[in-house]
């Protein structure tokens, strides 16, 4: 056989030449003007993409087959396998399930407003002593896969699975501390009783649609298939979408559930494509391979400047904060057990922001140092110059919208005032400032290093020699778990979940496995006072005291809330109304195509 080397080689080489010519001609910047960003208030993430009148609301006579328009594709990163879907395991990834409309909770945040609305229930009432609730379940709620109608048995089973022996579900501590018990009253009525009052038990398990809230599974299905088999194929929920496929690290496919008990999805299916490289995500969006994509903040301007694409903020922003670590001043846990070891390895009273436990003068000086550090940070500058406007300054620690919007008060505003901050340092006995290390952990937000270094620079302008160290979150975590740190930890998160703020603070109990360097009794004591009250007014009053305490003491120094950003193809998508509830994109049933 004759081989025409010359001819073949010419073809190969011509291809290479073409590649280089194209490459040379295609680089460079995009000179188109950037469109204004929408630093949307995080209470609602609904955004109409055009000014066109919205399509009419769905009518009850509309059938799923007339409504399903097409498949929808979303590029997302780090879509972890929901091995933790079963209620008895930790719940973080099951936030995906909820946001994606596979599993549902009793209530969830409404679209467009920071209010809870009923999902699996039609109403509830509290017992007169505030230690119990009765939930009326919605009738006609069908489980995926033909496993029948949801009844009180399913609800109770799902709750009990979360708190059974061996469970590592995040709500178990709360459930056990309150002696919570669930009971089937009748087929569509469930009651819960606590041994001791707890004002946020209801919020945690039924109210907010994230975190510890009970997601309802089909008891019948689990008993028929066995618990492992039942959970491994990921079906058995009640939401508008059914799992079709989950290829870890590759793709998740959801299909519309035609038997959905409320307004069914307009989409035939949803394909969530795992693309972890930010540039590739944006390339997939620009090339039309996907309809929407998560957009890392550094690339938001590039996406917004594309005439066929749009960006908007969604969900709950990530909280960026500075932990003045080493505040280990609790000798006993909330339950009264001795803290071991005590003092903690990271307790260092020499650190200006820690002070000497039990010494009021030293503690007041440490408070002034923390307040000085907080006042030295120009939060708005970080939002404008690093986040490109996709965020807002934060003045309360780890309280995230929509709860933040409900409780925010002007008195908690912390001004950027370097002179006042220096004055506080002088009063605290540090006229020449102090040296410190800011440890910045990575792996949560694409701009965390830039933000952390900005914070360090602001502190440097206030004080002495401020060094920075960058470390992965996982690399840092063991020393945090061991309570060994006493430096300043700048910690990021890309997204938050809406949960009662008291739950977050309760994790500062020294009895917990994890603590970011803050074991201080005062906020915990305030929270515990909530146990014995029942009215919303009293709860609000105590919450105000709690945040007065955080604001005054700066046990944690809040920095900014960084928005989650979505890029969408505006040629295709008319509107995507998204509820709050967590930082994951979801509510696909609310997408409207052009």
């Amino acid at each position, binding site marked *: 056989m004759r081989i025409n080397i010359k001819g073949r080689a010419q073809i190969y080489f011509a291809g290479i030449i073409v590649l280089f010519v194209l*490459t040379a001609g*295609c680089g460079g910047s995009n000179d188109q003007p950037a469109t204004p960003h929408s630093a949307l208030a995080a209470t609602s993430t609904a955004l109409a993409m055009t000014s066109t009148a919205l399509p009419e609301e769905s009518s009850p006579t509309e059938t799923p087959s007339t409504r399903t328009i097409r498949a929808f594709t979303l590029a997302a990163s780090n879509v972890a396998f929901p091995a933790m879907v079963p209620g008895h395991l930790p719940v973080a990834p099951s936030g995906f399930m909820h946001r994606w409309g596979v599993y549902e909770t009793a209530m969830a945040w409404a679209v467009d407003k920071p209010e809870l609305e009923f999902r699996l229930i039609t109403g509830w009432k509290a017992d007169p002593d505030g230690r119990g609730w009765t939930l009326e379940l919605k009738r006609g709620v069908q489980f995926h896969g033909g496993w029948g109608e949801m009844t009180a048995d399913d609800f109770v089973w799902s709750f009990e699975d979360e708190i059974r022996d061996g469970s590592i579900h995040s709500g178990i501590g709360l459930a056990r501390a309150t002696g919570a018990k669930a009971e089937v009253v009748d087929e569509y009525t469930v009651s819960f009783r606590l041994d001791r009052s707890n004002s946020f038990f209801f919020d945690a398990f039924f109210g907010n649609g994230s975190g510890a809230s009970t997601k309802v599974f089909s008891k019948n299905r689990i008993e028929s298939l066995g618990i492992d088999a039942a959970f491994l194929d990921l079906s058995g929920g009640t939401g508008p979408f059914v799992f079709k496929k989950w290829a870890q690290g590759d793709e998740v496919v959801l299909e519309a559930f035609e038997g959905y008990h409320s307004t069914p999805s307009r989409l035939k299916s949803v394909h969530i494509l795992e693309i972890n490289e930010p540039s590739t995500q944006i390339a997939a969006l620009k090339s039309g391979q996907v309809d929407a994509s998560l957009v890392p903040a550094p690339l938001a301007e590039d996406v917004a400047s594309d005439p066929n694409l749009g960006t908007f903020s969604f969900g709950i922003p990530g909280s960026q904060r500075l932990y003045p670590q080493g505040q280990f001043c609790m000798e006993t846990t909330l339950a009264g057990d001795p803290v071991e070891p005590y003092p903690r390895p990271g307790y260092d009273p020499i650190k200006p922001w820690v002070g000497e436990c039990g010494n009021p003068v030293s503690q007041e000086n440490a408070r002034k140092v923390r307040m000085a550090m907080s006042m030295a940070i120009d939060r708005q500058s970080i939002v404008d110059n690093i986040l490109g406007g996709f965020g807002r300054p934060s003045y309360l620690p780890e309280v995230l919208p929509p709860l933040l919007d409900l409780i925010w008060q002007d008195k908690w505003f912390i001004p950027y005032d370097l002179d006042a901050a220096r004055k506080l340092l002088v009063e605290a006995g540090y006229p020449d400032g102090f040296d410190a290390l800011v440890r910045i952990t990575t792996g949560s937000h694409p701009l965390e290093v830039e933000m952390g270094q900005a914070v360090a620079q602001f502190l440097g302008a206030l004080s002495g020699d401020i060094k920075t160290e960058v470390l992965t979150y996982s690399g840092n975590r063991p020393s945090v778990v061991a309570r060994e740190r006493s430096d300043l930890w700048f910690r990021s998160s890309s997204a938050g979940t809406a949960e009662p703020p008291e739950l977050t603070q309760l994790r500062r109990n020294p009895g917990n496995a994890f603590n970011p360097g803050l074991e201080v009794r005062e906020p915990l004591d305030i929270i515990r006072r909530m146990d014995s009250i029942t009215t919303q007014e009293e709860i609000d009053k105590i919450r105000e005291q709690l945040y007065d305490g955080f604001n005054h003491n700066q046990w944690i120094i809040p920095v900014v809330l960084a928005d989650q950003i979505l890029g969408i193809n505006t040629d295709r998508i008319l509107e995507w109304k998204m509820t709050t509830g967590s930082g994951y994109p979801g509510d696909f049933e609310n997408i409207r195509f052009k």
Partner: protein
Amino acid sequence: MRFLLRRIIAGIVTLLVVTMLVFVLSRIQGDPRSLLISEDATQEQWHELGRQLELDQPVYRQYLRYTTNLVQGDLGDSTLQRRPVVDILWTRIPNSALLAGTAFAFAILVGIPLGILSAVKRGGFWDHGARSFAVLGQAMPVFWVALILIYVFAVRLDWLPASRNAGWTSVILPAITLGWFGASGQVRILRSSMLDELDSEYVRLARAKGSSTRAVVWKHAFRNALLGPVTFAALTLASLITGSIVVETVFSWPGLGLLAVQAVSNSDYPILQGVILLTTLVFVFASFLADVLYMAIDPRVRIR
């Protein structure tokens, strides 16, 4: 045969050492609970997780159990997915094999002809072109090549998908990115070997006897120049299968490389251990294959 036997024993020893290293390194990381435990967890949950992960057992028992399971082909369960690691690896192997196979084909189909052309047309257009191709392929960072290819062929021209395995067209860009380095190596090694052979006396003799250029190139020079490229090809194939972490990450190609990256970010050490062991196995096998090919190509090796 003794030569091959020595290689087999060396391979087994390598595997044993790697299993030990993998086990020790994963323990040096510290208590895996400090990475896995939820921030909401109580001390009670901490102990429960330790029991589930069998961390309450002495280390030597953990190692014994690990190796016993390994011999039985059990690499343990993923801490995140709660599924056998072997099953997870099997979902990725076909993708990695497809990518590596295509990239290898690209490396061979481009590298060998260009290497030969470059040597035969020494100093000419093809030689300069091939050398430029080789220098660029070895000098340009892989991630940059990947991004440029995505930008040109997916975003600008819209000819090919930007990422993932969504049909046969998806493999083209990652395969070119991955295979370019190997092709460049082939060009350089083959060009060098071919030049040596073409300058040798037996080739001159063949020319003097009136053999055609085709016969001289293919029958005499090419055959004798193959030893270096074959070794390189075998090791290239192994590295294509196992070393495609950057390419798979940029293209979100669901292969072993991406699996390793995901395992690291999820602190899923059983999967990481599985990928490392598989990687070692592939390298050991590739080295063995190269030795066998040596024997086939060069009779002197058989005599040794």
